[in-house]
């Protein structure tokens, strides 16, 4: 059963909070992972590994660099759910 965009956002926010300590309220669709949330590359890869597990998706390494904002990631995960 596919998750809604809101559910994916909430789930992703949990992973980001767990990795970085950033409050879930800060994690909004328009936020840039690097410029707004100050997430470094190794934290980003950790979040990707955890998101693959949590949402049952595969996020190819080539795709990660296209995920500039939280919204990019939510859209990718929502549209690639099995």
């Amino acid at each position, binding site marked *: 059963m596919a998750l809604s965009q809101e559910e994916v956002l909430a789930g992703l926010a949990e992973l980001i909070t767990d*990795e970085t300590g950033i409050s879930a309220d800060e994690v909004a669709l328009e936020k840039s992972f690097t410029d707004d949330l100050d997430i470094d590359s190794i934290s980003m890869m*950790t979040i990707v*590994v955890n998101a693959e597990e949590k949402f049952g998706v595969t996020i190819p390494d080539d795709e990660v660099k296209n995920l500039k904002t939280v919204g990019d990631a939510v859209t990718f995960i929502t549209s690639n759910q099995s």
Partner: protein
Amino acid sequence: MTTPRIVVTGIGASSPLGGTAPESWSGLLAGESGARSLEHEWVAKYELPVTFAAEAKVRPEEVLARPVAKRLDPASQFAMIAAMEAWEDAGAPDVEPDRLGVDFATGIGGVWTLLDAWDTLREKGPRRVMPMTVPMLMPNAAAGNLSLHFGARAFARTVASACASSTESIVNAVEHLQDGLADIVIAGGTESAIHPITIASFASMQALSRRNDDPATASRPCSVDRDGFVMGEGAGALILETEEHAKARGAKIYAYVVGGGVTADSYHITANDPEGRGAARAVRLALDMAGASPDDVTHINAHATSTPVGDPNEYQALRAVFGARIDEIPVSATKASTGHLLGGTGALEAIFTILAIGQRQAPPTINLTTQDPEVPFRISGSPQDLGAGDQLAISNSFGFGGHNAVVAFATA
């Protein structure tokens, strides 16, 4: 140019007796034991022959903020907690980053991180292996993270000499300070290796006590019925500083680090040299560096792990240095209370030694049933008075690989 004197201005620990250095010391003086039955599913699952250990009293992940803790193996978590306490205790000194160094040791490194990642790889495949796996498991992870946290840029060095590791790192720190490489060094060591693999391995070599029915009395150094050591975990950290630097900033001084000796047995990878020559030489080196004679020593924190072979071996080594007077020097075998923290043990025992000479009391050695006539150290189940005079104490650590490290502390 005269060689600078080195002082201890801060101490910190997370140990089986407490989450801080003062709590660990209080537990030691009160005669507590940190050993308990292990309540992990893996003990029964793997039918481990030893079902207890001296786990840290306070879990490190409960002390550190979650985003900090999850980037650190438990060994580095203990190191961070001990170092933060020591740093605060030293008055959070204002020091040039290029003049602040780190000498922080481990015996084994991030064994939990490594083996958890191996489980993940086998169960879920390589895409689930976390990117931080290697930087968390590497043995220099503690030193590197301390450098990062405290802004230490003079150097960040890791020595690995098994159970001698953190005594050796303190000796190295003294040399680095005397060589002018830094004004302050964060020194010590850590271990978090109470894992089914290490228990199985140490049990397989018959090194661990099998007193599963009575963990609190299992570590009994110098007792005739000792049957092996008890695994412990945790970290100890010391802020070492040149006397000039410490006095210039008005820091409180716990003790002087007056000597250090490091030697190798070249005898056997795990067994002690039966004549204890390497250990005796390390003691003599430490006393020579201190400009002291064996007659000046007022207290000894022995390595004394509670193994049948190790304890009398240490006695023989010390007898070779001190002669018959060894039987008169107040000795503490504090692993009776703490278990054996492997790479963290020397730093914790250094802290105990410093507090002992400062307070003029040798801490008790619990679980002494009938003292082995082969190990007739002057030890006691109660604190021993060290007298009012100047104190000079040594703390010994010996490790697999034939490593011997001894550090000497003085009150003045």
